[in-house]
């Protein structure tokens, strides 16, 4: 079994929330080493060489993202994006609650890597327990002198601020997050300018996912070669996959990228007895479904894109033959319609329109033309939007409508027959 515990090591075995336990296991050693022995550029170089890519969904190379910061514009900020709200994804949630010190150490290293003196963590509003656990960990670390002014006797100062969201999916979008953090309405900003140039409070800002930052700790500990040795040619390292849906043991499983789709299903205990595999949504609610023919494909960024989907945030949702795909599509579109911030027209109007049509289909009240209309509208709004939310509606809907057209068309035929 390819399960490899890196970030998840110790979770479920030791109380990693206890700073003493965490330190006994080697915690904060890398942070101390970085401040005492490394320059920020060394950390950046390690991140770059490891091939680490953003684990929040966009898979942008982390080192490259940091290097976009203009050299002469200060202050700059690091934001740890813990607004995990992608349907089917629950890895950051676990890290925050089970390994808060690992998250914090990753943030400290990231902040040092971009040489900023103030880092923020934006925690999704619903993660109240995670917020409390992280805040306690933060207090412990502050008392232990792990951050603040003149860290480990060096000239480096760093402060950390925790901000809770109010429960909006759109605040996981980095510029929506920045607006929310500034106390504004959580709406994505018009780009350019990009956050690396004009982000939080108009200053250069890097927004990294929790998992991305956490991987900095083992990368510093074991070296960039160790990390890049795992995975595939362009998808290096490990990934926590949140497996859910019709499997026997849903949960978070950490593994090297490139593990096959079939292996992941098996890791999670396989399907329930007597059930048939229908589809899997490999990268959270925004991704298209992949089917039987992709079962032996490696689970990495390139292959998933090639399969017509994406790896996204690693939310891996398995569907067996008990699935009502009309209902599943309605559930997702309703989510996007509910979470659309309403700024730009295609997303605002398109999502709510499709939600109403799908609601009719769910209630067996389809009318001729609905099928083509859903495909047409979902396709035509894609690419017209201000941010990625509006473009996230089409993939799942289109993939299941094209694969299982009868599930949708039968709802229309029923109405006509009545």
């Amino acid at each position, binding site marked *: 079994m390819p399960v490899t515990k890196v970030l998840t090591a110790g979770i479920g075995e030791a109380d990693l929330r206890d700073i003493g336990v965490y330190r006994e296991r080697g915690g904060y050693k890398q942070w101390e080493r970085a401040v005492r022995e490394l320059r920020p550029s060394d950390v950046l170089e390690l991140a770059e060489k490891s091939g680490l890519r953003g684990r929040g969904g966009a898979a942008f190379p982390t080192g490259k993202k940091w290097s976009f910061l203009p050299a002469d514009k200060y202050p700059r900020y690091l934001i740890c994006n813990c607004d995990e709200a992608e349907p089917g994804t629950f890895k950051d949630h676990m890290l925050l609650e089970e390994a808060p010190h690992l998250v914090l150490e990753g943030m400290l290293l990231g902040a040092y890597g971009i040489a900023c003196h103030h880092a923020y963590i934006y925690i999704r509003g619903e993660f109240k327990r995670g917020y409390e656990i992280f805040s306690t960990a933060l207090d412990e670390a502050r008392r232990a002198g792990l951050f603040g002014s003149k860290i480990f006797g060096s000239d480096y100062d760093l402060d950390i601020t925790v901000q809770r969201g109010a429960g909006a999916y759109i605040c996981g979008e980095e510029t929506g997050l920045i607006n929310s953090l500034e106390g504004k309405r959580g709406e994505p900003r*018009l780009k350019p300018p990009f956050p690396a140039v004009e982000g939080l409070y108009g200053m250069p800002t890097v927004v990294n996912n929790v998992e991305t930052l956490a991987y900095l700790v083992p990368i510093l500990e074991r070296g960039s070669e160790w990390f890049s040795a795992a995975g595939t040619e362009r998808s290096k390292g490990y990934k926590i996959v949140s497996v859910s849906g019709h499997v026997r043991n849903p949960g978070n499983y950490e593994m090297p990228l490139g593990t096959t789709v079939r292996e992941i299903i098996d890791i999670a205990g396989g399907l329930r007895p007597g059930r048939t595999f229908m589809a899997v949504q490999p990268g959270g609610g925004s991704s298209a479904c992949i089917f039987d023919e992709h079962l032996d494909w490696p689970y990495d960024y390139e292959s998933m894109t090639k399969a017509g989907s994406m790896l996204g945030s690693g939310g891996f949702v398995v569907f067996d033959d008990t699935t009502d795909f009309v209902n599943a599509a309605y559930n997702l579109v309703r989510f996007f319609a*509910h979470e659309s911030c309403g700024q730009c*027209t*295609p997303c605002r109007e398109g999502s709510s329109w499709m939600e109403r049509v799908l609601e009719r289909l769910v209630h067996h009240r389809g009318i001729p033309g609905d099928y083509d209309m859903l495909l047409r509208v979902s396709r035509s709004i894609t*690419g017209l939007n201000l941010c990625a939310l509006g473009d996230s509606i089409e993939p799942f809907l289109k993939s299941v409508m094209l694969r299982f057209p009868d599930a949708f068309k039968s709802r229309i035929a029923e109405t006509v027959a009545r």
Partner: protein
Amino acid sequence: MINLTIDGVPVTVPQGTLLVEAAKTINQEIPIYCYHTKLGPAGLCRICMVEIEGMPKLQIACNTPAADGMVVHTCGERVEEARAVVLELFLVNHPLDCPICDKGGECDLQDYAMAYARGTSDVADPKLSKPKAVDLGPTIVLDEERCIVCQRCVRFDDIIADEQQLVVKERGARDIIATASGRPYRHNFTGNVTELCPVGALTSRTYRFKSRPWDLNRTKTTCTQCSVGCQQFADVRYGTLLRTMLVEDDPISDGWLCDRGRYNVGFYESPDRLTQPLYRKSGSFTQIGWDDAIILWAEAIRHAIAARGPASVGAIGGGRLTNEEAFALQHVFRALGVANLDWRAGLQRQATPGARGASLSAVDGAEVIVVAGEPPAERAPVFWLRLRKAALRNRARIVHARNADAAREAVRDATRVALIWDGVDPAIGKGYVQALSGVPELATFITGEQSNARGAEAMGMLPHSGPGYVPVPAGRDANAMFDAARAGEMAMLAILGANPVRNAADPEAVARALEHTPFVVVSELFMTDTAALATLVLPAKGAFEKYGTTTNLAGDLLPNNASLQAPDVALSDLEMLSALAEQLGAPLPAMGEIESAVIANVANPPRDFTLGDDRFADASTAISTGTSTSLSTGPNARRASKILSGGGTWLHDPWLARMREEVS
């Protein structure tokens, strides 16, 4: 400069020009809703999609700067498909109530839907319902269902008006526009959002369900509600003024109107308007004809001069008249040897800044803006908007200096400074100018109480100078005339377009002065406090009912064009003065000569004085110093008016009365 190609046409634009603006240079229309030249890009509506060669996705023209060698297509299959999709989506929840919508006929949604949308719709589901006819505040009524959430109003409120009252509430398709606090939307510039709104969502309370745009006759004229002189359109249907609209490219107003200029115009329709000359006979007024009125007036002047000399005759007014009328007023009386001439019926002593005067645009580049006396916020609202713009966009500092020393401290190291003075206390004006005399580029402005105060001065309605500020043997100024009248020294006073009993520092003293004057002539639109004390009341035309010119606080000569018919037999002050001059046997110069004189006198502002010059100082003692002139604590506190109480006409304005009711 950047060279690019738009629809096959080579275009050269400055660096940083957005594609939407670049396309305008070749008259190629790119549809827009959320973008506005003065608000900048927002990227919300997604209608302005264009195709750029080498880019896989369509791009929004409103946030894409032109780049060298760029090849842009604003039409073609992909672009037209995207536009049709966006328009289709706009109409999913739009109520399509164009037949009863005020905006119908001048609506961007209607126009673009006709031009770019498919003719049919696939929508089979009920539309979302939202609140309709929402009272946003005293001036604005909002239809949430028509709103397309372009956020122009929100951004206007944020970056132009600097009020931050309007926000988007709720989320997604349930978005609504509302005030953040939930309290009524009110500030001095609310009406502008109705014009920024590309659809019929934000409507003026005064114009709702009144007319169709194609039924309106439009006249461009100058707003006479304050001394800024914003250009505006008067929209009239069947002889009734229905609305006033801003002029987009007007350099005076920068393309905005304040709520006073926009809404304080209902008084033209008031049933309280004076329509016939009135003559006081044994205590009460009797209606008389114009011939009799002019003869009575002329006889009173002749009699007064014959019996008690020209020093017993005086004329007050001009600040609310046109330049031509002010010129005629002083011309008629100076021809008779009368030197008691003054426009200053209120608190303001001076309207012409003199040597340090400047054009309005001088504040745009100012580093520091010093405000002395009453701030221009209510006095010259659109000028104030310009100051805010300088502060918000160019980081100018606005300093309400407590005294001249504080002002000097505030401008240390500054090269370009603007000084804004209310013209009331000459000592303040003089003190501040002296304090700031070391500034290399000092631009001074006087915000006037009356719209044409500066024009009246240029036309010679001053006791010490004639047309073109040419010094003449001094007569009495207005307050001195009132002093003399109370002492029984005045035989005849003519007050044209002024209401000193309401606006002077000591209204009771003025009232006593008029009671002690045997013959008082007042030309007015309404039976004002001053007119009520007159011997002869002449019904006058308002600014929208006559032609002429006006001079704003910066010395711009601006046209006044008639758009309305005056009620009954009301005459303009110029017509009255012309008849009076005929009757007195000394006709006015030909109209062409008056116009030439106006142009010549406004064109060359004087250089031999500056703010608070001694010649403008008050000759009277009793009125100007007898009581406190402090605006906040003195007897005039009641006049520190809020914008919707407007000029002297507010008591008679049915529009404003309705708005005030809505608020209370």
